[in-house]
């Protein structure tokens, strides 16, 4: 592990706890900035969707759903576009800085899903969903977490690519063409959003289940008493 580990002495009780600096500052900054940007992108995106809540023809228009205005951001189409076209830069910048930093620093190794993680997936699935025994923690992220976080980055990239295809279907006509044209790219952009929301839901459930110590590590970087460290 390249991460920095320390031992904490409690002078009152004499107890010693270990802690690991799990999340570098840039990762934490990108995480929270991206979380806010994602919230704005989804909210304003849904308001934009309300202007034409369909993926079929305009005439006759068959609405897919009537998305409630209370769960949308921007108030009206023009307002939502202002939010969307402003925060897309923040969303992309935080994503690019994150990926760039992870690659440059080598920190990606703790979270990137690689083929050797495949055998460890089933025991984790058994533990999470079928009350199986908890596999021993060997590193900061278990194979299923790596798979989820790596997929999330992939979905983030797809959300940007499908977004570019519908924002600039002429200048990036090759991108729109690869996705089957503007019309289908718009549908994909919408579906990628739901996939990201599914990830966020699972992520939040796991964060709640793992408690404050784990949550604070994304604020301070430090995780106390990580089980993979103790021998």
């Amino acid at each position: 592990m390249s991460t920095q580990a320390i031992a904490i002495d409690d002078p009152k009780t004499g107890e010693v706890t270990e802690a690991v600096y799990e999340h570098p500052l840039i990762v934490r900054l990108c995480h929270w900035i991206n979380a806010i940007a994602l919230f704005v992108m989804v909210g304003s995106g849904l308001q934009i969707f309300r202007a034409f809540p369909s993926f079929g023809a305009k005439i006759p228009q068959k609405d897919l759903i009537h998305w409630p205005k209370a769960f949308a951001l921007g108030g009206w189409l023009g307002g939502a576009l202002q939010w969307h076209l402003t925060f897309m830069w923040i969303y992309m910048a935080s994503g690019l800085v994150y990926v760039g930093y992870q690659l440059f620093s080598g920190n990606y190794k703790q979270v990137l899903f690689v083929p050797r993680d495949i055998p460890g997936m089933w025991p984790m699935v058994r533990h999470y969903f079928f009350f199986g025994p908890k596999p021993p923690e060997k590193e900061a992220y278990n194979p299923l977490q790596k798979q989820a976080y790596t997929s999330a980055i992939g979905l983030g990239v797809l959300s940007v690519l499908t977004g570019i295809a519908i924002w600039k279907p002429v200048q990036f006509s090759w991108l729109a063409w690869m996705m089957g044209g503007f019309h289908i790219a718009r549908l994909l952009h919408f579906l990628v959003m739901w996939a990201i929301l599914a990830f966020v839901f699972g992520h939040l459930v796991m964060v709640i289940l793992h408690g404050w110590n784990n949550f604070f590590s994304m604020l301070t970087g430090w995780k106390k008493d990580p089980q993979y460290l103790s021998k």
Partner: protein
Amino acid sequence: MNRVDSRKFKSMSRRELLKLVPVVALGAFAIPKFQKPLLKAGLGFSDWASARLFRKGHLAPTFSDSELTPFDKFPLNTYDVDDPGVDFDKWTLTVVGEVQKPGDYTLAQIQALPKITQNARHVCVEGWDVIGRYGGVRLSDFLNKIGADTTAPFVTVACADDYYESLDMATALHPQTLLCYEMYDRPLTREHGAPLRLNIPTKIGYKQAKYLTDLKVTRVLDRVGYWEDQGYSEFYGL
């Protein structure tokens, strides 16, 4: 392994937490006083980037006749009336501004320029899209005919129904930007903007004004466009 006592660890953690302060800066977007100028700046940045991404030689995709949206399925997005009651016999396009030959141009004078027909995608800001067939003359040919100073950055148009629009000169000179007088090989119908409208496959729908009455080549933009002046993107190139 380094050893620290628990008080030191707490202060270390607090310091790390404080380093996240830049995230709080995004909270400025939640303050009503800052929200409007910040979003205006954000949209302005997007427009600036859009203008940089525009390539004058790059053509919008065109489509075969079989891919056309049938004419009766081509939507009308009129902002007030479908028919502003243009008197075709008296209609002219009034040209002013940075041009050598200002004046009133008849439809016949415009139609005398080389005719272009194109099947192009029309994308509405609402999210729908259709593929239409348009016929007309290149705006660049017309600008050439009127002796426009193409170093002026803007071309603006006014319409019979009080709608108005503006174009950056690069888009105005793009080979697919048309002064359009035909759709689906027939003269424009009144609800689609007869006798003359804009067709700009490199722009969003609201830029493609209908029922044109005035055209101006200008260096100053006192107003941008009907929707733009309410908060929509000023450039909105596709």
